[in-house]
């Protein structure tokens, strides 16, 4: 795959202090709509609850090759460059610790890794599972004082286990005192919320990626599609209106309609690009090929976005065991089966059973490193359900 230039396919990142983060317009309305949709689906069934302008059965999945061109992976290195600028602008070069947090699938680990690579800075390696569950502090002792250092994913340095907090406490104590030098810590927003209670991390400056709106998503998705060279047109199956359109049709009314549809997606994803990207990639469809046509030879640029909010929703009567599994996975930024069983208050068998059931429903997905995490397409509904049931949720 050709390397895209930052200018052509760079998302409109903005790095802001945590207190300046704000969700996109209509996020609350999106949550109400999700609740209403769940209630309507349970009363009248899924098909009847969804009013569609285009029958989704007439559409077909896009070939992987085409998807890779239309929706290439997010290039986080541009956000790393922006992080560097932000640290310089805020004169944070001398702060002992700066946190950079994003929600699951939000890219904090690759961004901080890219940043460390760009700056030529060493990363602090995470402890082993045995060190975490044994309460060992040897891995902290190994952290020799450096001028500058980075932790791409702090969630790998702790466990919600009787002995799983000592290490991260010792590490943060050394870091806050400046004994380790100056560092940037990438952290999952859920882990950060947990650490606020168990360690206390409010003293350090915290930055995050600002939420994106519908217009910004529209520009980004148009730009990344074949480097912005191809003129693609994407329609919504819900309304039948264009979501991304031909440039010659770019009048104000047309743009407003398209942005409104993507604003709906942005609100559903709470403005997080990582989640929105997964939705976009999973929901793009092609028009049905005529009989005898080879799908892989398809050159049609008319695409459809199936209703972005339709699938992978958790039902309101989800049991406590499933909720505990989901919350635990979110607090740790994903876990392997063995570790999951160790941090839950029930047997490994029950934990595995619950995890299997959730994975089968599409609520959980396996990451490249083998850890199970809440799937991007379920994240919004899982977060909403955890919040309504008074579980600790992230600040983003």
């Amino acid at each position, binding site marked *: 795959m050709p390397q895209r230039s930052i200018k052509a396919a760079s998302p409109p990142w903005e790095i802001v202090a945590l207190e300046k983060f704000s969700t996109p317009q209509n996020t609350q309305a999106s949550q109400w709509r999700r609740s209403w949709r769940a209630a309507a689906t349970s009363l009248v069934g899924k098909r009847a609850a969804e009013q569609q302008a285009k029958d989704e059965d007439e559409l077909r999945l896009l070939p992987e090759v085409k998807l890779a061109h239309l929706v290439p992976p997010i290039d986080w290195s541009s956000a790393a460059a922006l992080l560097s600028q932000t640290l310089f602008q805020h004169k944070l070069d001398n702060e002992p610790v700066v946190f950079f947090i994003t929600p699951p699938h939000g890219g904090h680990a690759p961004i901080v890794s890219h940043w460390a690579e760009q700056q030529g800075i060493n990363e602090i390696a995470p402890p082993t599972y045995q060190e975490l569950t044994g309460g060992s502090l040897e891995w902290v002792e190994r952290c020799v004082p450096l001028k500058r250092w980075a932790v791409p994913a702090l969630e790998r340095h702790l466990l919600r286990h009787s002995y*799983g907090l000592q290490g991260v406490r010792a590490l943060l104590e050394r870091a806050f005192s400046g004994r380790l030098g100056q560092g940037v810590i990438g952290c999952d927003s859920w882990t950060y919320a947990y650490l606020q209670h168990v360690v206390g991390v409010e003293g350090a400056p915290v930055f995050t990626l600002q939420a994106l709106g519908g217009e910004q998503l529209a520009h980004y998705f148009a730009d990344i599609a074949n480097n912005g060279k191809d003129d693609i047109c994407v329609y919504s199956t819900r309304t039948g209106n264009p979501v991304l359109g031909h440039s010659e049709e770019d009048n104000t009314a047309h743009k407003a309609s398209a942005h409104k549809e993507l604003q709906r997606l942005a609100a559903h994803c709470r403005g997080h690009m990582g989640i929105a990207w997964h939705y976009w990639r999973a929901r793009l469809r092609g028009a049905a090929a005529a009989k005898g046509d080879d799908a892989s030879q398809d050159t049609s640029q008319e695409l459809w976005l199936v209703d972005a909010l339709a699938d992978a929703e958790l039902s309101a009567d989800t049991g*406590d065991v499933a909720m505990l599994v989901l919350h635990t996975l979110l607090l740790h930024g994903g876990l392997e089966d063995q570790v999951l069983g160790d941090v839950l208050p029930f047997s490994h068998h029950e934990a595995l059973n619950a995890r299997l059931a959730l994975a089968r429903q599409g609520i959980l997905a396996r990451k490249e490193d083998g850890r199970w995490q809440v799937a991007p397409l379920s994240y919004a509904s899982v977060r909403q359900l955890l919040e*309504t049931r008074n579980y600790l949720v992230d600040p983003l």
Partner: protein
Amino acid sequence: MDDQKQYAKLFNDIDSQALISLGIILASVILLTVVSQRVLNGLANRLHGQVRFRIFALVPLTRLVILIVALAIAVPIMIEPSLRNMVTLLGAIGLAIGFALKDYVSSLIAGMVAAVELPYRPGDWVDIEGTYGEVKHVGMRTVEIQTPDDDLVAVPHLKLWDTAIYNANNGETSLQCVASFYLHPEHEAQWVRKALRDVALTSAYLKFDQPIIVVAEEKPWGTHYRIRAYPVDPRQQFLFITDLTVRGKQVLSRAGIKPALLPPDVALEAPDVAGGRRGLRD
């Protein structure tokens, strides 16, 4: 003869039309009460958190409103609602209640007071005279409490007049739980305090917007530690206490801290009068 005429005047002529009207009112009251209770209870049981308690609180209140409206419609059908008639009727009812149905009516009236004052509502965890459990249903005469042993106990509302009612969560989602640890006096108390706090902080059931307090109290036989913390949902209280106890014991045992062993002649603390709730929570 005049007296008979006067009593006859008290009641309207109950013709077939009046009987049909009364029958319709009675049927409507039963139907509306059953439907409203089923719908509201069903809805509340599907929800969690604060909304669940708000909807549960509407159950007895809705029934009270239905009854008042039905009485307001039915009474004028049976009697002429003049001052003299009402005084006569209420006097006769008062006499009957005073002699025969005192406790029954007292419970009914207390039930109305309970529907307005809300000393308990479905979903609350209450302790009434040693019966601790979750309020399952607030009826006309009794409140039904499901104990942790799965017994359903019907307690008459008239207890409201002269009995202390302990409500552990009072319509909220916060219910404090207490896990106790009895330790041998020779140990590093500061370390134990921190370790027990970490045990609470690493519980999957912990509610984070409430404080965690570790209380230490010196006794003649050793030290009594209590973790006071809140579970995410009041229904998780026993699982939460068990989780704290099991993991707390594991941490203390691994650190070589011995439990307190009482000599045979030392009496245990007097059992709590309230029984179930405080026995479990303290």
